């Protein structure tokens, strides 16, 4: 891997710009502006801005990717007019939403009505500061980054319920209740599946988990955990077939019925941010993150930013599988959803924890590692 890291890029940017400004300013000011502490401080801000811009850009491209894929699944073309192959369509949509008035229902609770979507969006964006994207492309060493990511990820039902409750609409309230019930029901198997990964990797640090998969990716030994994690992610992301909280056929638009304009755009963006985070987590935990199997020719893994490229390719493919499921399956009923969650997913996740513990105890994991040509 190259030595370019997110921090070095932002430091370079801040250093170049501040020194350029300092070279044209008079003496005392130029000394102050090229001060090393200031450059470092600005570099941290640039770091955050880069992360934010990258996550937003990826989210919007992800919406485009879903629209195109879903189009092919439905034997049509997706967005195709604005920009190349419709790439700019979502920017146009976002701009339209940005220009629209935010209409607040008369009896809505202003505080919850406005803070709900904002907090939902903000907590979803915080996740991008936690997840490592490639070696060196993370915001520092977090020994419990997986735990932190999942904790932040599970804030969502609270804010969804707050915004649903405060919009003073029965459909919103029902959608919010369903959302809370569903997210809490699927949090348990999701975390248990993660426990299986943690047992095998021996760490809560996502970077360590990725490097533990140098020899074999975890989906091989932990295929049960992968299935549970995938289903749990589907429910957490509220995507078809688990999109009961939105259920536009029954609940108008679910918990965001009363939201329009930019607040709706917040929900939309946050949904796709969470979908992106879900795909990234699947890639990090089960598909080897930014690494490739050892039998892949070196030319494919040694070019600059190869880690990020492969990471994004994997993420988009995983999200493609989410879209595939959306294109195939109908929406389940509430009772089916909860029954599958409590009666099937939790036993399966416990089984996966047991299997992981067994694999670690009897030390048969190297079996997967000693056949590198399989590349699992």
């Amino acid at each position, binding site marked *: 891997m190259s030595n370019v890291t997110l921090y070095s890029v932002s430091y370079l940017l801040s250093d170049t710009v501040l020194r350029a400004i300092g070279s044209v300013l008079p003496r005392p000011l130029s000394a102050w502006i090229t001060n090393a502490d200031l450059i470092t401080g600005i570099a941290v801000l640039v770091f955050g801005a880069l992360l934010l811009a990258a996550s937003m850009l990826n989210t919007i491209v992800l919406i485009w990717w879903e629209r195109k894929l879903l189009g092919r*699944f439905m034997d049509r073309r997706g967005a195709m007019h604005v920009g190349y192959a419709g790439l700019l369509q979502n920017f146009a949509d976002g701009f339209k939403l940005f220009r629209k008035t935010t209409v607040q229902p008369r009896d809505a609770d202003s505080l919850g009505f406005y803070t709900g979507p904002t907090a939902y969006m903000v907590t979803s964006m915080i996740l991008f500061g936690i997840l490592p994207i490639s070696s060196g492309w993370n915001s520092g060493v977090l020994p419990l980054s997986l735990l932190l990511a999942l904790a932040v990820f599970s804030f969502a039902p609270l804010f969804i319920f707050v915004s649903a409750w405060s919009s003073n609409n029965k459909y919103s309230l029902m959608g919010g209740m369903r959302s809370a019930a569903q997210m809490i029901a699927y949090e348990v198997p999701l975390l248990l599946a993660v426990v299986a990964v943690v047992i095998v990797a021996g760490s809560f640090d996502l970077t360590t988990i990725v490097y533990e998969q140098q020899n074999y990716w975890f989906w091989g030994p932990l295929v049960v955990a992968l299935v549970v994690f995938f289903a749990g992610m589907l429910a957490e992301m509220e995507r078809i077939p688990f999109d009961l909280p939105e259920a536009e056929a029954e609940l108008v638009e679910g918990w965001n019925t009363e939201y329009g304009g930019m607040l709706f755009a917040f929900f939309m963006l946050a949904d796709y941010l969470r979908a992106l985070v879900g795909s990234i987590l699947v890639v990090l935990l089960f598909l080897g993150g930014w690494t490739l199997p050892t039998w892949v020719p070196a030319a494919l893994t040694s070019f600059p930013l190869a880690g990020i490229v492969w990471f994004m390719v994997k993420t988009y493919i995983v999200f493609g599988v989410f879209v595939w499921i959306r294109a*195939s399956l109908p929406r389940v009923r509430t009772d089916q959803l909860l029954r599958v969650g409590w009666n099937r997913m939790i036993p399966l996740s416990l089984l996966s924890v047991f299997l992981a513990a067994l694999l670690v105890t009897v030390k048969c994991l190297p079996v997967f590692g000693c056949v590198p040509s399989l590349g699992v």
Partner: protein
Amino acid sequence: MASEVTAKEKPGEHPVLWVARPMATAARQFAKSLFRPSTIVYPYERLENPEFRDRLEVASGKPFGVGQVWDNYRGVHALNIATCISCNLCAFSCPDVCIEMVSVPGGDPKHPKKCPQIDYGKCSYCGFCSDACPEGCLTMTTRYELSTPKRSEMIYSPEKLHEIFRSKLPMNPIRLARPENEDAILLDPPLCIGCNACSRDCPTQCITMLDIPKPEAKPGEKLPRRIWKEPVVNDSDCVRCGTCISVCPKECLFWGTRK
């Protein structure tokens, strides 16, 4: 909760198949439309393009030649001004009253040539005008793109229709099967004053004014003030447009069956 399994699943089928089967179907569809979804991207592609020949055959239910459309497609009209005889039959037959006869350059300055101008805002594309046209100069083409930001541009002048004629689009002269027209123009001789209006306005010049003998006036009787001529209609040339009946000042011409 007893009857939990929904009705759609086959009995005894493993629940994994409930997920796997639709996903396989979706994957098959995805593979099929990966490079070419069935959508015809209309402004850029058209159904009548040769590459969609097979689809047109399915749509029309019959074998389909390249560059052709359905036999009976009724689109925008094409008008051949040169052969138009200004008989007005198209305007008469139009159920939507969207055809107006307007003057076109050329022809006798005293009696300007009139050709149909069609308002496509009203037209229902029934094809009656094309059916009625005795000379076959008003036909319907396969052209169907009419959208315009201005309502006034929906009115197509005879010149514009002639442009469409000259563009050599596939044309469908509408000829509905109909019984031979038995009607003929008959004359009520005592009323006729021999004014020549019918002969003058006949688009096919099938009316000739023939001299009739001027009767001798009996004593005390006053002969009518008239020209001693009478119209004779050549039935084989007559297109039954009725112009003569409408221009006759004395209403002495009428429809009837010739004995």
